[in-house]
């Protein structure tokens, strides 16, 4: 009996590793970044778009705006496409097609982000440059690549949400004379609403946190974009581009950028898990 108790303690200890890691990560990122925010003041840090770390200017407004815009762009493309796949697979596809297509589409999640970025540079960027103008490396290119990258998240969570709607709902609606599409549109989708919102929020988290692909296709220019063809630098890209050589206040500023990103992601995670819990 003593041994069982001992084992339980060890397992509890192992089980606390995930929350322990999360706390450690939070502490270190904040510990390294807070001094810079204290130095510049929160307002100057968040609301100035003058970023010249070697000359003591640490404003990240342009990057916050870029990150938000790229994420919105990704959602505009990824959500309709992903939702369409989810509805097709969950509601319309024959069982055999579904069992084949669902895991196939999930393979999109396995493709490394550097490969997405690379193909973006090879195919998408020249296309944008030649047909729409601008440098090609742009907000638009970033949005399209991120839109594709969030597909697996949006698809798999939406399918789960749609599959969780009881068949009674569908039968009831069909019995009232509705077509399949009317049933999906008026009954199933509203019933799966909170799950689909979760899918969108997690897709958003995925998009705003993505780094390597966005560095490769978005152009990384330090200004507030005025057109979707302008090159942009996101929060994540800023960290990854400069961490290699930054030191002193400059490095602190990158951790402070990390804090902003971390807070955004945590808010999205909390929102997603709050919605899931309420269901």
């Amino acid at each position, binding site marked *: 009996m003593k041994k069982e108790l001992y*084992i339980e303690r060890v397992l509890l200890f*192992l089980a606390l590793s*995930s929350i322990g890691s999360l706390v*450690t990560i939070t502490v270190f*990122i904040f510990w390294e970044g807070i001094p810079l925010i204290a130095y510049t003041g929160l307002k100057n840090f968040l609301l100035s778009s003058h970023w010249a770390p070697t000359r003591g200017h640490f404003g990240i407004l342009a990057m916050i705006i870029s990150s938000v815009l790229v994420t919105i762009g990704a959602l505009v493309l990824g959500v309709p496409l992903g939702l*369409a796949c989810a509805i097709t697979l969950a509601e319309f596809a024959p069982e055999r097609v579904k069992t084949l297509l669902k895991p196939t589409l999930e393979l999109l999640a*396995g493709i*490394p982000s550097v*490969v997405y970025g690379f*193909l973006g540079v090879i195919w998408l960027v020249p296309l944008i440059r030649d047909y729409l103008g601008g440098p090609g490396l742009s907000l638009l290119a970033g949005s399209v690549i991120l839109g594709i990258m969030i597909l697996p998240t949006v698809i798999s969570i939406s399918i789960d949400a749609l599959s969780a709607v009881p068949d009674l709902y569908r039968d009831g609606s069909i019995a009232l004379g509705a077509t399949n599409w009317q049933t999906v549109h008026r009954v199933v989708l509203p019933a799966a609403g909170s799950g689909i919102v979760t899918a969108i929020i997690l897709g958003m988290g995925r998009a705003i946190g993505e780094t390597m692909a966005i560095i490769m296709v978005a152009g990384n220019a330090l200004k507030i974009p005025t057109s979707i063809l302008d090159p942009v630098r996101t929060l994540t890209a800023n960290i990854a581009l400069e961490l290699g050589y930054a030191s002193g206040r400059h490095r602190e500023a990158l951790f402070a950028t990390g804090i902003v990103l971390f807070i955004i992601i945590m808010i999205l995670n909390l929102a997603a898990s709050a919605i899931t819990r309420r269901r």
Partner: protein
Amino acid sequence: MRLDPRLSQVFMKILLWTFTGFTLFILIFIIVNISIKGLPQVTPTFLLQDPLDMGRHGGIFSTIVATVYVTVLAILLASPLGVGSAIYLTEYTREGWVTRLIRFGAECLAGVPSIILGLFGFVLFVMKLGFGWSILSGGLTLAIMVLPIIIRTSEEAIKAVPQEYRQVCYSLGLSKWQTITRIVLPSALPGISTGIMLSVGRSLGETAVLLFTAGAALRTPTSLFDSGRTMAVHFYILAREGISMPNAYGTAAILMISILLINIVAYSLMQHLMKRYS
């Protein structure tokens, strides 16, 4: 004017299938494109020779070694933690604030972007603990990254083992721990392997974390404290700095095909398990 419901249904179905087809097309395009351009580069020499002249010539042997090292280290560290967490969550507790806290931790950790993990690994392992850019720093950070994957899949696999199995064990006088190690874990093994394989796939493709924790040295690492450039990082540097497109394609092809194969096997293992017990 309202459209006839049957007509609008036909219209919507066509639209939905077109979107699905387009998504499938993107996937196929990526796989075919990288394979066609990359696979011809992949020769035994490419795999077994070290990169020469910053990767302009030669192969990718040292990057394969570095990739294997960090991945194995990450899996060795994360598996006991992840499987242990899953056992605790499923077998040892009732739902309560402790399980909620643990699940919350795993969920949030899964959402932490890799660049944040990279920052964290850089400041803690590379700087504060003085491991430098090394296999050790990279493996430790990757372990944190894949931990939630292993927890989630192991939990699912353990839950899929029917309750009757446990009851039979208890009725035969086995202790809880004996039941778990002799019956529950072996039955859940395919699912647990799924989690581990998915983690391997995730580790192979990871770049942001490793760039800042394992570094980008091209020498073959010989100790835990050596820096090592993984295949994904190598590919990123080759492509971004335009060092060698053929070699970039070759590296990408190997990387992508191994990840896809691993994911396919992982998925079918899990399907197999779920089918057996449902």
